[in-house]
């Protein structure tokens, strides 16, 4: 496997935001930890501030927040969850949290135009500093199964093959806040970060997406 050559990463100082937002961020991470009782495992992978795409199975509204909260704080403020605009723009609290605290990248699921494709938007927004947290299944699964992946991850990597794709497996989140519920039940869960994968040169779309899905399923067995 030969990796393509890329310009060396540029050291950029990212402003950490106002104090209130940082305090709110730490508070939100703590609340997420208390509610979902997650334990974090890094398997053949270590936290890093390099540009990454964390891709995970999706079963709950908590998913984006808990992955964000599970990252060490110096990585966390560089990582932006990709989330649905219709959910996170509803209500002042959600809007504040999404825009100011965990700095989400909100995607309009209803109006996707050719000129404004979500992948282009994501690439523009992350620049050469931020990482992304994505859920390639597209929407939340009602059960613990991992559904087929949509092609966004592939196009993301095709345009930026230097991004490290980190598989993340979320266990038990669907029981803590399942689809269609508002109030959480505080069970215990776990978050497993796996070894990175990259899009290989000339790798077909279906093959890459299958490989990515298998990378998550493998973490289930560990």
């Amino acid at each position, binding site marked *: 496997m030969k990796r393509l050559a890329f310009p060396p990463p540029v050291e950029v100082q990212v402003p950490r935001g106002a104090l209130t937002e940082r305090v709110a961020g730490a508070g939100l991470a703590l609340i997420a930890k208390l509610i979902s*009782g997650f*334990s974090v*495992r890094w398997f053949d992978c270590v936290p890093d501030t390099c540009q990454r795409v964390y891709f995970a199975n999706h079963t709950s509204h908590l998913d984006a927040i808990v992955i964000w909260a599970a990252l060490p704080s110096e990585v966390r403020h560089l990582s932006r969850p990709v989330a649905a605009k219709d959910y996170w723009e509803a209500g002042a609290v959600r809007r504040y949290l999404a825009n100011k605290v965990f700095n989400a990248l909100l995607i309009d699921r209803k109006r996707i135009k050719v000129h404004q494709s979500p992948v282009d938007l994501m690439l523009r927004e992350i620049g050469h500093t931020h990482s992304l947290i994505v859920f390639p299944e597209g929407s939340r699964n*009602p059960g613990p199964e991992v559904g087929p992946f949509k092609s966004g991850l592939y196009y993301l990597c095709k345009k930026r093959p230097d991004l490290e794709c980190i598989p993340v497996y979320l266990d038990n989140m669907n*029981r803590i806040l*399942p689809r269609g519920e508002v*109030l959480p*039940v505080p069970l*215990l869960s776990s978050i497993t970060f796996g070894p990175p994968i990259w899009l290989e040169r000339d790798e077909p779309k279906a093959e890459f997406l299958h490989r990515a899905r298998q990378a998550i399923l493998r973490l289930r067995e560990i």
Partner: protein
Amino acid sequence: MMDLKTLSLVGGVLVLLGAAAAVVHVLKRRTDSGIDPAIVETFRLRLRAWALLFAVLAATFVIGSAATVVLFWAISFWALREFITLTPTRPGDHRALFWVFFLCTPLQFFLVGMRWYGLYSILIPVYAFLLIPARIAIAGDAKRFLERTAKIQCGLLICVYCLSYAPALMTLRLPGRPAEASTAAEIGDGVMLGAQAPGRVSRSAAAAAADPGQNARLLFFFVFIVQLSDAFQYAWSHLPVRHVIAPAISPTRTWEGVLGGAATAALVGGALWWATPFPVWMAALMSLVIAVMGFAGSMTMSAIKRDRGVRDYGTLVAGHGGVLDRIDSICFAAPVFFHCTRFYLNMAESINPLA
């Protein structure tokens, strides 16, 4: 603050733990001791859990009995979390589980805190027992209904109801407890005992000056005897004569271990009679009961774990301590010890009302 008796009990236990930690530290360094390093490591982790438990317990005594109730609420909450995480539930159970965690559990400890014996002794066995199946039925999922209901009820009874009897020891009306507490004591007990016997309040008030830490000592005594009998059951099960009780449930538990552990607990408990409201023989008998119930609790929780195919509740989700592994024996012993003590005190009082 603590009086001399409480201080010697708590201090004695902490010194004992410190000494044990030192021994383990030496054993861990020496590879030629001939003891299995896995056993040393298990013991080291257990010691750490005990040290934490007793230190926190001692700290709450200083703060007051409300802090003890809150502490046990937190332990209960975490244990129930582990229990339900391990137990398969369906999406239809979600709302019922929400009420279990955020209504039943805090309410039980709140009632214990306000000493309402008449209600906290039936809240979960009656009201929560009825609430859970009704809420699941309303959610409309009939699949394995009885099984799901029973699992949630069982978790709530063991992790919350039974455990809440441990802080309830702080609310028992012991001979010589503080006066402010006995006037408010046991509202729901059928009769207002304080009103029934006005003389008692002044007697208690007089005795209270002599012994304010009696309830805290009783709870500490109880937790100590449970953990001690656990440890000695483990130790005695390494005797050369081994009759394993149920190899499919726990391959290490032997009848020799149980008998040895219970006998040791009775001896130690008897020797600690000065810290309790009991005479020597009664303290020994109570310790025996605690040891037997603790054994029953460990066996029961082992059976549940075996059924679910896990070794510890702690390994279920990596990185978590496994609170339920540490408190399974407390859960079973607490209600029985509470009621035995309560019965004994009532008997003693009716035989000799001036005692």
